[in-house]
């Protein structure tokens, strides 16, 4: 007999014998109350009772604290029982994804985001609450397994090209796997950016296009190292040229600006410094003289004094003429 197996067999045999003895004493060795919730032997009836009890408490909770207290009790349903828990839970409450469903999905996604996502797609896509479930899942998933979420989002986008608007219900019902739209990929980037900047931007590059939320994504990067990590998602940064921003270079440009905002001196020392104009305080002092400097002077003046003309009495006729031309052009 394998020597390594012996202790296991002896242990199990001892357990069985001891349990039998205890049983003879009429103790009816059932599991602990906490274990009861985790034991599949007790079946769905127990889960159902427990969930309904939490639901009642959540429904009657008047304060956030009471809600949170009730919500915590759902924690005792083990992850492998969440699926049956969800099946017994009212998923929609007044047209919204119910709090209980959200809490279950959050826990599930923390363990296995893809399983939670597939369940939600199958069961919620026709109920008008898919987006809400999706956001809860990706937030929890990004937190626990950012790389897996990133890979999943890229795979999902590769398999079905994300649509620009909203996915239609008809298309959704035809698909067994979640269909992502532009906003869906955007949401993934936003969730990932604080925990995994590189992954966030990998998804962002797949998303492409422009959104009013893009600046929010860049602003979420709170340190130069986070910006540098986000830049790792880009290929061909060495080929970028100043004033020639196109394609993904536009996104890289916004990251360079963020870098410059966070630490101008650090950016100045980087090998990307040539891509953006210097922001040092000497900038205005180094304005070129003559006609090429007049335009900077014009823009500075008009932005600080939008309706007041400058004092032109000591100006050369050429400068006065140029100023009037700029005024006609800008007005």
């Amino acid at each position, binding site marked *: 007999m394998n020597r390594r197996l012996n202790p296991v067999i002896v242990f199990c045999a001892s357990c069985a014998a001891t349990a039998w003895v205890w049983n003879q004493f009429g103790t009816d060795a059932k599991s602990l109350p906490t274990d009861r919730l985790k034991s599949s032997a007790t079946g769905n009836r127990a889960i159902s009772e427990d969930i309904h009890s939490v639901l009642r408490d959540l429904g009657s909770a008047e304060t956030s604290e009471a809600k949170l207290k009730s919500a915590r009790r759902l924690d005792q349903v083990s992850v492998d029982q969440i699926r049956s828990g969800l099946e017994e839970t009212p998923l929609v409450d007044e047209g919204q994804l119910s709090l209980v469903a959200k809490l279950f999905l959050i826990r599930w996604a923390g363990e296995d985001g893809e399983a939670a996502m597939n369940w939600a797609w199958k069961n919620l896509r026709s109920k008008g609450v898919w987006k809400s479930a999706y956001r809860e899942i990706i937030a929890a998933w990004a937190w626990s397994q950012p790389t897996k979420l990133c890979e999943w989002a890229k795979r999902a986008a590769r398999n079905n090209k994300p649509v620009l608007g*909203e996915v*239609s219900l008809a298309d959704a019902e035809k698909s067994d796997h979640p269909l992502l739209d532009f906003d869906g990929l955007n949401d993934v980037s936003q969730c990932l950016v604080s925990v995994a900047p590189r992954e966030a931007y990998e998804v962002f590059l797949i998303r492409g296009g422009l959104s009013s939320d893009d600046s929010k994504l860049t602003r979420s990067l709170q340190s130069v190292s986070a910006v540098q990590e986000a830049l790792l998602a880009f290929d061909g940064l060495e080929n970028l040229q100043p004033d020639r921003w196109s394609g993904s270079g536009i996104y890289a440009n916004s990251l360079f600006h963020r870098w410059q905002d966070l630490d101008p001196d650090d950016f100045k020392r980087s090998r990307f410094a040539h891509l953006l104009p210097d922001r040092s305080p000497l900038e205005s002092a180094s304005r070129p003289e003559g006609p090429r400097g007049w335009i900077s002077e014009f823009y500075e003046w008009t932005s600080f004094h939008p309706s007041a003309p400058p004092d032109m009495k000591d100006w050369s006729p050429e400068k006065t003429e140029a100023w009037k031309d700029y005024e006609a*052009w800008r007005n």
Partner: protein
Amino acid sequence: MVMMEDGSRQLLRQFVEVRSEEAFRDLVRLHAPMVFNTALRQLAGDRAAAEDVTQEVFTLLSRKAAGLGGVVLAGWLYRQTCRRASNLIRTETRRKLRETSAMEQVDRIHRPDPSDDLARELDAAMETLPTKSRDALVIRYFEGADFSTVGRALGISEEAARKQVHRALERLGAIFKRKGITVASVSLGGTLSGFGATPLPDGFVSRISTQALKGAPVAVGSGWFYLLKPMIAGVAATSLVTAAAMTIRSKEVGQDSLQPLRVEGHGAALSRSRSISEDTSLVSLINEIKRVSSGPANALTTLRLSVVLDQIGDDQVAEFIRLANGKLNPQERAATYGRLLERWLEKDPESAMTFVLEDDVGKQVDPHTGSKLILNLFEDWLRRDDPTSRAWLLKHWENPVLKESAFMGALGMHLARNVVDRLIRADDKQPLRDFLRALPTDADRKAAFDSLAGNVPWGSLNRFGDVNEGLDCFRFIRELPDSAWNLDVARKYLSHWMETDPDVFEKAASTLPRSDRFLVALARLSTRQVSGERIPGLSGGFTVQSKPNNASAREQEAIQAGLDLGLPRGEILASVGAILLDRLSEEDALAWVDAHRGEVQLDECLADRARRFGSADGAIDQVPFEIIGIRWASRISDVELRVRMCRGAFRKLCARDLQNASEWLDKPDLPSDMHDTFQALVEESR
């Protein structure tokens, strides 16, 4: 109240005695947030490294558990974390000196996050404290426990624990002072709370526990003793579990079966709100908000944040926001200010809104969220009390905060549009007339209709219920006293209506008098596309598919409608041309202008189109904005304006990119009669 350290002892004993994996998992759940956050702090925010350290510490715990009976577990874990984190830093530094990191692709300069001095110095200072003082601080602040728990862990009374913590803070303060960091012991307590544990996902806890248990020692021995050990363990474990079950079941009768018996599970960090009721200073709440907000952006975090925000009284909102401005980051401010202000607004809207303006609260969050916050608050107030809210708007019209926004135009104007959108639906239009009269200028009055006229992307027309409501609005606009702008607004309003709801628009248009038919035809001409099929979407709403509206057919209709009304051809073409310059592509629009040269005067529209390229630098398809501007300006008939605008644009290009400017000199895009002028400007700029 949770007795964390007591619970730890029980769990540790359970793990040591029966190797309960469940007990070990609970230990990890209980202490992993503190361990992970300590590691994260020391490793300058490197999550992967902090996870490694957390793993190492709990693996060590699983091995050494039997010998830890007499120690304060939280304190022991904290010390191990600090030790392992500094080992890692040393190893990494050596390794990085040798290797070329992938990060160097982007000139990564590895250094700690530029957070404040206190965070960097904290753990070093903690290390120098006596064990008891350090343990007290770890339990109180890094694990968020109350004083009675600290007392039980240290084997002293609650009052003694309070004193112990106070003394420890003073010592810590003195250490900081020696290092040149001045901080009072009172505020130090609040600050330390901010370094406390953020919740960790279940997956993380599970991963750490599983790996750690793999490293736990297995029984070793020989002969009968080798087999005796598992046998005794089997008997003991089964007996213990059965006896425990009997005991617990007997106590459980009549109690809610879901009441947790475990010390704390997934919600360990969630329940930390209990410490708030004890320590309600705003600084502590700010620290708690920081801790909660650092979790994932899901419903649980929102709920936890609500629990914290509920601790702030309505009369404390202003004080809280002023204090939090320097302590919370913009994202944290965005997540909290709106909710607090909404609550204040419910009780005292005027004070809340005036505070928002006076303290420029919108600026404290990011510009977009800030503008949206003020818009939402005002809209909420308007819905509940429109006379007072609009009087407030007029009173503060000149306030600098309302003069700008992150959207197009001034924030005050956005609020005014909300007022107009609301009042125009009322049967009594007098309040709307009064409101418009009170706006300072004609331009303001015109802009207040931008939403109805579809001049802003979030036009409100589609909220109209039926034909009569829409016609009622149209008549109101037409009857406004100043015809200089109301015709333009009325036309845009009709166009927006056609775009949004073409069937209802056509029904309404057929009821309008003959005098309005030219206006209707111009509205049809200016509509780029009309709504088509409504396709149900995943979120329960609809996606509206748009169909293009043919411009050339509409142009002839409009000209004919003008002629039918007896208008001069030049006047008709000016109206039609102004619309087409906006509607058509640049190439088609310029071709239209060239085809009607001499028939119509469009200088104002052409100058306006040219100036759209005047305020920014850039290019479309490699054509600089200045050159595009010159294409439009060169069609202007007023000679002086034409020359000045073209020169202004070219001067700017010369200043921005002289080489590019000289390359454009010989291209046909530029007016040939100005070639010499442009050439001279290039020379002048060299």
